[in-house]
């Protein structure tokens, strides 16, 4: 009977979502101020009236227990890597070892002030120095700056370095080449760095179209930004030739390190001829993604670029402090430096995690990680090449892939009438995260799949079965996928409406920053929990 069919009997089905502001009740609090020992002078006596706030900021008023429940409740509406398979192409969703959170939380790391005198921060500086060395060895480029905050920040640093390098030689170049398979941050970075984007085509093997590259590479080209393996998950066999062409024109070759996870200990950007590399520590070196950061985007460069690296640089002096022990310092005195990409020394907390990771794996482990990442990707590629799947989701370039591969949803679209988006949404009901979709752009209805090395075979097999079952289901009734998901906290959302009439903050009536929209649930006036 219906009474047994569950969902329909879920009394919470239609429940309203409340924000922390809507849980606020005047007078409640989680904070207790410490005892005040200094004279309790009124603010008005300390500060000019015109500098003082007239109305308090409308932060929520909630007790600790209810704050905890609120955010706990929100967390339960997130899918995450520790819950299940997350083959988000280009994002390297590998396991985040729990040890890293422990070592990052050590007071000597977490509670260390960024301006502490170097002599009292030797441990932190040595850690950074050791990480620089390890990253340099992995990329095959000797000089490392840990400063950039993420991959795209590293890209920007890379182009600013290129600019400084050329200007220093009296060359004024205006163009930067990016393949049509490039990630969006590449062209966006080019513009921010003051250059003009010139697109380079892709050949039938999924690599850079050499003729097109040659045609577009002239003395006005400052740099070619490349990802290798590229965003199709393919290693560009012509990389040596590419380097030759680019260097021949006096341009720099930039390596977008987002895909480094495929080649650690196997092939090094520096050896491929790249001048500048960025790393995504939150990808290859397992800083947890945090729902969109933090990350870190260190860069490594060749000798000719070194003089322009950001300041300060961590340097090592043998026993300069009398003792035989090496001594570490911050070198601010770098006349040709491009300056600072950001404040202080970068995202140190991320460095701690990535350094711990490198210590755990060592040379062998890193190579094994890349090998297994490539093994897993090719195994899943093989599983998804089985006829009843490949028929609907043909692979974009039928070659051995590296750490990821790209399928096209054209077959499913044409034969089953479901789009890649529908397949992705239906996956949500199977509790696996969908691949990256609709990227790279040159593959129609793209599904970009990166399983990473930390997934066991069973997870890959399960994913293949999920894909198969979705396609079989669609063959019966495409409506099911078209209307998926069904079991998620919310179902498909009106994104167009959100963009047309953007509501980007809680409405609270008469407050300073409030655009004036009245709250749907005026703060506190609700019994719902």
């Amino acid at each position: 009977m219906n009474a047994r069919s569950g969902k329909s009997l879920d009394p919470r089905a239609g429940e309203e979502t409340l924000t922390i502001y809507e849980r606020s009740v005047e007078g409640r609090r989680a904070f207790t101020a410490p005892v005040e020992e200094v004279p309790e002078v009124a603010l008005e006596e300390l500060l000019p009236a015109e500098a003082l706030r007239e109305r308090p900021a409308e932060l929520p008023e909630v007790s600790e227990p209810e704050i905890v429940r609120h955010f706990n409740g929100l967390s339960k509406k997130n899918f995450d890597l520790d819950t299940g398979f997350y083959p988000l192409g280009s994002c390297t969703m590998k396991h985040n070892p729990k040890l890293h959170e422990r070592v990052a939380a050590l007071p000597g790391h977490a509670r260390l002030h960024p301006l502490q005198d170097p002599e009292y921060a030797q441990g932190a500086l040595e850690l950074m120095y050791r990480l620089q060395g390890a990253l340099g060895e992995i990329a095959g480029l000797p000089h490392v700056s840990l400063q950039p905050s993420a991959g795209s920040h590293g890209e920007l640093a890379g182009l600013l370095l290129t600019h400084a390098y050329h200007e220093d030689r009296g060359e004024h170049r205006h163009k930067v080449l990016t393949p049509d398979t490039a990630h969006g941050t590449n062209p966006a970075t080019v513009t921010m760095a003051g250059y003009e984007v010139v697109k380079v085509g892709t050949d039938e093997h999924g690599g850079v179209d050499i003729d097109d590259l040659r045609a577009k590479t002239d003395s006005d080209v400052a740099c070619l930004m490349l990802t290798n393996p590229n965003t199709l998950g393919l290693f560009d066999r012509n990389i040596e030739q590419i380097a030759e062409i680019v260097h021949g024109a006096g341009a720099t070759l930039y390596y977008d390190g987002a895909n480094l996870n495929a080649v650690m200990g196997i092939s090094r950007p520096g050896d491929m001829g790249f001048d500048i590399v960025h790393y995504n520590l939150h990808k290859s070196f397992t800083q947890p993604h945090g729902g969109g950061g933090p990350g870190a985007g260190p860069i490594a460069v060749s000798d000719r670029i070194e003089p322009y690296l950001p300041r300060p640089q961590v340097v090592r002096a043998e026993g300069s402090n009398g003792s035989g022990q090496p001594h570490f310092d911050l070198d601010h005195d770098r006349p040709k430096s491009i300056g600072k990409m950001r404040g202080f020394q970068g995202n140190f907390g991320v460095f701690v995690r990535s350094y711990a990771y490198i210590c755990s794996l060592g040379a062998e482990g890193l190579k094994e990680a890349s090998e297994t990442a490539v093994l897993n990707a090719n195994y899943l590629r093989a599983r998804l090449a089985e006829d009843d799947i490949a028929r609907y989701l043909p692979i974009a370039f039928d070659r051995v892939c590296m750490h990821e591969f790209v399928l096209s949803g054209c077959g499913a679209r044409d034969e089953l009438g479901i789009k890649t988006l529908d397949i992705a949404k239906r996956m949500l009901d199977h509790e696996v995260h969908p691949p990256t979709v609709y990227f790279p752009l040159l593959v129609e209805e793209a599904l970009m799949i990166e399983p990473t090395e930390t997934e066991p075979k069973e997870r890959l097999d399960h994913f293949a079965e999920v894909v198969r079952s979705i396609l079989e289901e669609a063959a019966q009734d495409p409506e099911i996928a078209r209307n998926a998901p069904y079991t998620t906290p919310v179902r498909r959302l009106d994104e167009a409406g959100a963009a047309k009439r953007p509501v980007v903050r809680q409405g609270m009536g008469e407050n300073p920053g409030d655009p004036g929209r009245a709250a749907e649930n005026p703060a506190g006036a609700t019994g719902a929990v």
Partner: protein
Amino acid sequence: MSRYTSATDADRAAMLDAIGVDSIEELFAEIPEGVRLQRGLDLAPGMAEQEVFDHLSQLAARNRHCDAEVSFLGAGMYDHYVPALIDSILSRSEFLTPYTPYQPEISQGGLQVMFEFQTAISELTGLPVSNASVYEGPSAVAAAGYLAKQETKRSKLVVSRGLHPHARESLATHAVGYRMSVEEAALTDDGATDVEALAALVDDDTAAVFVAQPNFLGTVEELGALGEAAKRTGALFVVAADPLPLGILKPPGELGADICVGEGQTLGNRLDFGGPSFGFFAADQRFIRKMPGRIAGETRDVDGKRGFVLTLQTREQHIRREKATHNICTAQALNALAGVVYMSWLGKRGLVELGELMARRTHYAREALGAEAINPGPVVREFAVRVEDLDGLFERARAEGVNPGYRLRDTYPEYSDGLLVAITERRTKADIDRLAALVGSVREGARA
């Protein structure tokens, strides 16, 4: 096989078989010999978990952290108490391990957090639109410069010398990319931004004017006057603010700021030797489609249920590519979460109480030290004084486990004897009196 991977020999054999190759080697056949690494990486061998823990513990033990001394060091990052509930919430794997919420149906938690964060930042800054975070403070200032460039098409940026040195340098570094010049307005003898000097630099080609609130010396700037001077020729007025004192200070948005950016570490984030923390970016309504980074917006699902999504994505690199408003992708979501949890913990009243406490202790400290003030004007969390024998003070103090603060001469040669002292709720009256005694005795020493 490492402890983080699962492929046993049996698994490998089965998988290679399914792929149709004989060895893992074959999978790398695509890589030309010439670019293959013919040796192993020159790195130490892997370690057991306990060995890594010991190694990093030993390194950490060689840092003197804020619980290991009485520190008055601030200058951009501050030793505030981070409540324990932040640890417990941030350690939830559902917040710690997902990627940017590209699939909103299974990311409502993270998206709602962004929405709540944006609301809190909007409340603090007095500006209606906030994004979901940028990297950190100084690069947020640079991001404001990029918006100003795109908005005004002008080529000059004017900064107050009161802006954090890192922010000024970061702006200058990025400005090279923007192909813009940066000019600097001096400070008055009282350590506030010189309105006239600033006004003099602002011309028709000025895209934006940047000031800090409070400024680097701790001075509470007269934003109203500065804003007028800045906007005369249509330049954008950008305020880089420490968000915590905004609990008691008038919001920049009410004093003419078009954009308010800043470093969010003071909102529930650890010091972490400088990062990760978060930067915030708030602006006037008219810039909503010019903002950098992620923005969460409220909407409904097909069943009419309330939900949140990443909105206005056509601003962003993954859609707009070379025409994007900024190249930022990964930002600081987890740190922003710490920020919104912290603001919820402080709450409407706590934010004011903490601001009052800091202001009181700061003024008490400035008096107690009895040293000549570099910026005698209003201060709320930090102030600068002249100390005769600065090196003597540091030597003496550090020996006793006290860190007196920041030596201004490192970045402001004009204040060769300047000491910048930061006060938080962690520094008690006793701590302050102790520093005062040290300063006093060194003064005696110097005079004797």
